[in-house]
């Protein structure tokens, strides 16, 4: 039973990891909280859902979710972030909130406010491993997450685009002096972040076999907690924090009641902020944040 819960926790945690990475890319490079990510995640989920129910293959669904969310993210960057780049940090955060209101409204009007269920025929079988049974879809969720994280790691660490991203994160002005195009990198960061959020959305739709327009608010806010727990200055903290929170959440629901779930997650986040603001994996002397 405990092992089974762990497996479920890791699956949920995989989605948290992707979403926390999505928040973390924008936060780490630009220092702003992009609140629209939660709704990009939801839209990605609906896009993937539509592709799956149209009997197309799963990779197509993930790709569609990623492409759709990345495209919307690019629009958000052009309209909602770029013109407000030199404003206090609250201002671009609220303009991304404007977009998240619009996206949620679009989803409610297009697909209704009731949850959409994935028909049984798509659910796939379960594989028994001793006492634990893993759904095929659960394996897919974890597998896709591993692949995407590996691709991300490669892009950020090994390519020239990744080097430019890290340079802008370190110091935007110096990076520009050295010939890195600040605005192009910002757009790239938003699109990568959007793509990850979209993929996470498709995966959550598969994991729950259902999707609602409110999944963004429910899961998205918690991904912020996951990002903080992993450490905002180290993108890879999310790899540890995602499964950790996923497991903690599943275990509290199983043994303590679903009501105290959020209390545990946010309590953990505040404890981390107070006692280890650099996050679980962060180095020393983390950035203490700018004034708003």
């Amino acid at each position, binding site marked *: 039973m405990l092992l089974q819960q762990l497996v479920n926790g890791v699956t949920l945690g995989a989605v948290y990891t992707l979403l926390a990475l999505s928040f973390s890319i924008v936060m780490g490079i630009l220092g702003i909280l992009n609140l629209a990510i939660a709704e990009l995640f939801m839209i990605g989920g609906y896009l993937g859902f539509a592709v799956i129910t149209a009997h197309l293959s799963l990779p197509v669904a993930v790709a569609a979710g990623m492409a759709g969310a990345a495209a919307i993210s690019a629009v958000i960057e052009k309209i909602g972030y770029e013109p407000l780049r030199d404003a206090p940090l609250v201002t671009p955060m609220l303009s991304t909130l404007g977009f998240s209101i619009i996206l949620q409204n679009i989803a409610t009007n297009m697909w209704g406010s009731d949850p959409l269920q994935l028909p049984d025929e798509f659910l796939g079988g379960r594989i028994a491993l001793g006492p634990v049974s893993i759904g095929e879809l659960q394996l897919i969720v974890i597998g896709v997450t591993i692949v995407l994280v590996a691709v991300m790691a490669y892009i950020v660490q090994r390519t020239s685009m990744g080097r430019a991203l890290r340079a802008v994160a370190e110091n935007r002005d110096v990076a520009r002096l050295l010939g890195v195009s600040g605005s192009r990198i910002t757009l790239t960061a938003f699109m990568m972040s959007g793509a990850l959020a979209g993929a996470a959305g498709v995966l959550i739709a598969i994991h729950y076999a259902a999707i609602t327009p409110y999944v963004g608010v429910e899961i998205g806010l918690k991904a912020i907690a996951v990002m903080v727990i992993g450490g905002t200055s180290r993108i890879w903290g999310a790899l540890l924090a995602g499964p950790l929170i996923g497991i903690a959440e599943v275990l509290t629901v199983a043994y303590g009641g679903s009501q105290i779930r959020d209390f545990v997650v946010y309590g953990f986040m505040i404890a981390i902020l107070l006692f280890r603001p650099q996050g679980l994996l962060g180095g020393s002397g983390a950035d*203490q944040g700018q004034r708003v």
Partner: protein
Amino acid sequence: MSTYTASLLADVGILTLGALSVYVILATGQLSLGNAGFMAIGAYLASYLTVVAGVPLTSALVIAALCSGIIGVMIGFPALRLKGIFLAMATLGFGEMIRSLFLNLEITGGAGGFHGMAHVSVTYVWIWVGLILVLVWLMESSRAWLEMRAVADDETAANLIGLNTTMTKIGAFGMSAAVAAVSGGLFAHHHVYIEPGNFGFERSIDFVLAVILGGSTIGAGSLVGAALLVLLPEQLRALDDWRPAAFGALLIIVLLIRRQGILDRSLLRRFTFRKQAA
């Protein structure tokens, strides 16, 4: 005045107080995304006092404001080690924790909510709003306010010239918590029913939106922002299902063309000048 208008006006008043609670913290350069948590504390405490303990409403509101203010100060001590977006995220977590706490607290009804409060009139709500607006206005011309602005502009410099920046920030945090609690108490007694869902992240965001839209450099901006936030969706009724989207678009447009908010000091001066001329 029809019940409908009265109810809208009361909502404007309640939101104005919530917005002012964010404004006070913002004046020290810090952002709170969790003031709905203090609002929840005020709402539940004031309701519990009037319904179960039989305390008159005005005293209940004062007690709720004091308790919430003390909680604010207690939380302020550790939380204010954090700055900027990190403090914002910590307050977000605080707000969600409080909501989750009331969801589990059986003496206040848990998820089922709490009721039994006597309904208060819109006039009573606005007496409180007026009082607190005057209080903020008086504060804005005080020395303490200058110190708060100094902390907002450059905390290190403020520290160097001998200001106690920690006390300034904690004081602002406590006052913010007290004002949010009054807003919550009035909300509870106007709507006569509260549930933890009333005090979620969206509520905290509404407060911030009202301040930023109305004008974050002047207290009266909160009033303008709150009025806009409550009344505008009513005006957009013709758009039917697409009201939220239109509102979101409008929000982005206002931020793009007037990022200091609708009301600022120069605009206010122009208005008062015109009035004097006429």
